[in-house]
């Protein structure tokens, strides 16, 4: 009898235990279908076009809105990255470029629906693109780089056919439509919220998403979190499926150590902006998946203002280039995570490729540096300041200390100046800084695009205040060059001028370290340097 009892109670206990264990597992189930992404930045607007939008806002808009087309993906050293050369349809089922390259015709997906259930029509596309080139928003300057400047270029043929006309063939026109800004908005909904002062409903789209994208924004708390649910009607996922995760949580966690703890404890699924040291230790422990991709559309520089003495002297710039302790900087700032842009060998001293950026044939050589300094008539050196912004202190601070130490050896006295971000931007815009570090990014990383945007003109992005007639001429010509071989030659010529004149010194492409749970699959490095949530799934 007693045996029977204990057996029964054992059974009861087991059942109770099972119930108790089952309760939290129901909870865990919902977590399995959710992607929790933590970031140090914040989403500050739901419309990526609003001036001041953060990169996290761009990433969210990639999922809440569709564009006409999107970039494909390719493998680079075994890692998936976006592919500038494959443009696939997103809202467009297909597109056709006319033989003279002046007309692009898009056939829209007949089954595409906005998140409120209404169909996506060519009228919506027209309104959205008109807005992008007319309203005072960020898309305007971007689309300009693809010869898209006026609403006259956009035409509705029928409800599902849309046509773009170009003044001349521009190979960046189509890729531009795949970038962050030319989102296709539910025009009926947006127009209903437009006012006389705000005809393009910018104030409304800032806080409301009216797209046809894979995720529907549920709660949006700027500076804290965004929660979005999957749109079941969205079928642009591979192959013709909605996105894999049912729910998306994008949460701001300012402290990098906390982000590392969260992902290590399994509470967060994915994080891309950890400190290099944390990534290294997490990778060492081997419990998490770490995908480290050099940001192949970004470059970190040590810049010199070519109009401020003594940096207006090419020999001073060359001297600096040979006096930088590249290897030490790379280890101290990035723990070696990234792709170095120094220490190459160029056969016959000529650039081996017309790509941008390419590793430069420079390394630390103090003798050479001293010789150049002598040629510049400054054998005794000079004094200058080296600036960086607080936001980049984690990598720039150790770098600055090493620059100071190394330049002291050739008689150049460096004062380190750490500036708050807004102050640094202002000083750069006013061309006041002689010597500093900065980074550049291009969404459409073609050689002419880099040279036109970052080495010509008086705008802010010309960090080194470069003014070189030959470079400008070649870069402008290359823009519309259709012949691939010729384009490559032009690229080589540009790279040769860059190296000869040493406007600024490219040092590396930092790695984008995506740290995720081993179950998370499908990560692709994107042109936004953010995560495209639509790619991800759980194994």
């Amino acid at each position, binding site marked *: 009898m007693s045996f029977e009892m204990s057996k029964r109670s054992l059974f009861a206990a087991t059942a109770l235990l099972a119930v108790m264990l089952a309760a939290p597992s129901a*909870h865990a189930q*919902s*977590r399995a279908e*959710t992607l*929790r992404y*933590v970031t140090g930045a*914040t989403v*500050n*607007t739901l419309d990526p076009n*609003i*001036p*001041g*939008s953060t990169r996290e806002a761009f990433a969210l808009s990639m999922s809440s809105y569709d564009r006409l087309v999107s970039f494909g993906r390719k493998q680079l050293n075994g890692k998936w990255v976006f592919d500038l050369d494959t443009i696939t349809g997103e809202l467009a089922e297909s597109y056709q470029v006319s033989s003279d390259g002046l007309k692009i015709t898009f056939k829209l997906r007949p089954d595409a629906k906005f998140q409120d259930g209404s169909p996506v029509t060519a009228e919506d596309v027209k309104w959205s693109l008109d807005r992008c080139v007319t309203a*005072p928003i*960020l898309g*305007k*300057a*971007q689309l*300009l*780089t693809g010869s898209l400047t006026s609403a006259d270029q956009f035409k509705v043929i029928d409800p599902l056919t849309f046509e773009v006309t170009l003044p001349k063939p521009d190979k960046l026109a189509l890729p531009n439509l795949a970038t962050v800004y030319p989102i296709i908005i539910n025009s009926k909904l947006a127009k209903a919220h437009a006012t006389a002062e705000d005809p393009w409903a910018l104030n409304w789209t*800032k*806080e409301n998403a009216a797209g046809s994208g894979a995720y529907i924004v549920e709660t949006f*708390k*700027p*500076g*804290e*979190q965004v929660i979005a649910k999957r749109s079941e009607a969205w079928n642009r996922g591979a192959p013709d499926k909605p996105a894999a995760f049912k729910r998306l*949580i994008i*949460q*701001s*966690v*300012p*402290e990098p*150590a*906390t982000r590392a*703890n*969260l992902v*290590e*404890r399994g*509470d967060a699924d994915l994080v891309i902006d950890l400190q290099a040291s944390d990534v290294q230790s997490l990778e060492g422990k081997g419990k998490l998946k770490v995908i480290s991709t050099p940001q192949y559309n970004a470059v970190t520089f040590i810049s010199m203002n070519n109009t401020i003495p003594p940096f207006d002297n090419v020999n001073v710039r060359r001297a600096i280039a040979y006096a930088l302790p590249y290897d030490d900087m790379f280890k101290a700032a990035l723990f070696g995570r990234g792709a170095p842009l120094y220490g190459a060998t160029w056969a016959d001293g000529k650039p081996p490729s017309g790509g941008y950026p390419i590793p430069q044939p420079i390394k630390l050589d103090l003798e050479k540096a001293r010789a150049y300094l002598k040629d510049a008539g400054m054998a005794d050196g000079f004094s200058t300041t080296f600036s960086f912004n*607080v*936001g980049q202190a984690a990598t720039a601070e150790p770098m600055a200390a090493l620059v100071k130490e190394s330049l002291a050896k050739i008689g150049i006295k460096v004062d380190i100046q750490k500036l*708050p*971000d*807004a*102050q640094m*931007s*202002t*000083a750069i*815009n006013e061309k006041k800084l002689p010597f500093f570090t900065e980074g550049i*990014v*291009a*969404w459409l990383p073609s050689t002419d695009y880099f040279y036109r*945007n970052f080495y010509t003109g008086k*705008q*802010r*992005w010309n960090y080194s205040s470069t003014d070189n007639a030959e470079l400008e001429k070649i870069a402008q010509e290359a823009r519309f060059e259709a012949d691939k071989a010729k384009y490559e030659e032009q690229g080589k010529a540009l790279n040769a001028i860059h190296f000869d004149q040493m406007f600024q010194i490219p040092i590396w492409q930092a790695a984008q370290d995506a740290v995720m749970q081993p179950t998370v699959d499908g990560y692709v490095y994107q042109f936004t340097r953010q995560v495209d949530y639509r790619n991800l799934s759980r194994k």
Partner: protein
Amino acid sequence: MGTIVATLARAGRRFVSSLPALFGVLVFTFLLMRVLPGDPAVFFASGPNAGQEEIEVIRRQLGLDKPLPNQLAIYLYDVGRGNLGRSMMTGQAVAKDLKERLPASLELTLTALLIALVSAVPLGVLAALRPGSLVDHGVRLFCSLGVCVPTFVSGLLLIYVFYYLLGLAPDPTGRIDIFATLPPSRTGFLIIDFLLAGDVEGWWAAARQLMLPALTMALFVIAPLARITRASMLVSLGSDFVRTARSVGLSWWRIVVTYALRNAILPVITIAGIVFSTMLGANVLVEKVFSWPGVASYALDALLVSDYAPVQGFVLLMATIFVIVNLLVDVLYGIADPRATVA
């Protein structure tokens, strides 16, 4: 009844007399923000391809294209109507941002202050009862440790031990578990809202989330509170009325609590008021470490990017709170020592 009316009247007079100071703060921060280097328009136009045209658009949006006196006049007019401007950083109205975030900061700070007072006052009393003893030294050591370890260090340490190693604390991000459903917002204080909604489980989740950050902040301010308690207890214990009370044979407890402590508590209230005001502004690091969506981390982010409106709004808010806390201290004074109301 009369004393309450008198206290209220006095508080009202004090509040009105502090209005010019608030106005001064308003104008001063406005000017200060514009004198500081760093142009918000340039910073926020930092997206790829943002050129001079975009900078001008933002400058117009922020009203920075107008002459300074005009800007000030517009700003004062707006503030008068309760409009604190718009934050570029979050894209929201500053008044809305502050309103949403202030309860988070207040909840954290008040909890921390409560923890600090509950532990500091007994510690101070203990130390004062046996000056120079082992207990006294122990309290001194504890206080020194608390005050000399910066909050972000103790915060990260607590996270490391209680979240990372032991797994006892919930993940240190924000006010509530990200998967939990929020109670209907009544006061903005989560632990009160959960109770009002009768959701015990939610209340416990919110309380657990609050524990580590509040503890971090409390550790930092226990020292001044305990030291002040000890010092004024010593004075009070050595005074004539305590000696008299002892001589008539009153119980130990009654002497210490009713006579000595009640008299010793006045400076503690003063310090607590000051400590509270500084904590509210100074908990930036705690808010950062614990991703706490409060006003201090909001103001710091805004300052870094020269986002004028939030910084100005924050300073105004802090000044107002400072005035209110001072009033409150006055009122508490009156309750602790009725003679104070006459003054």
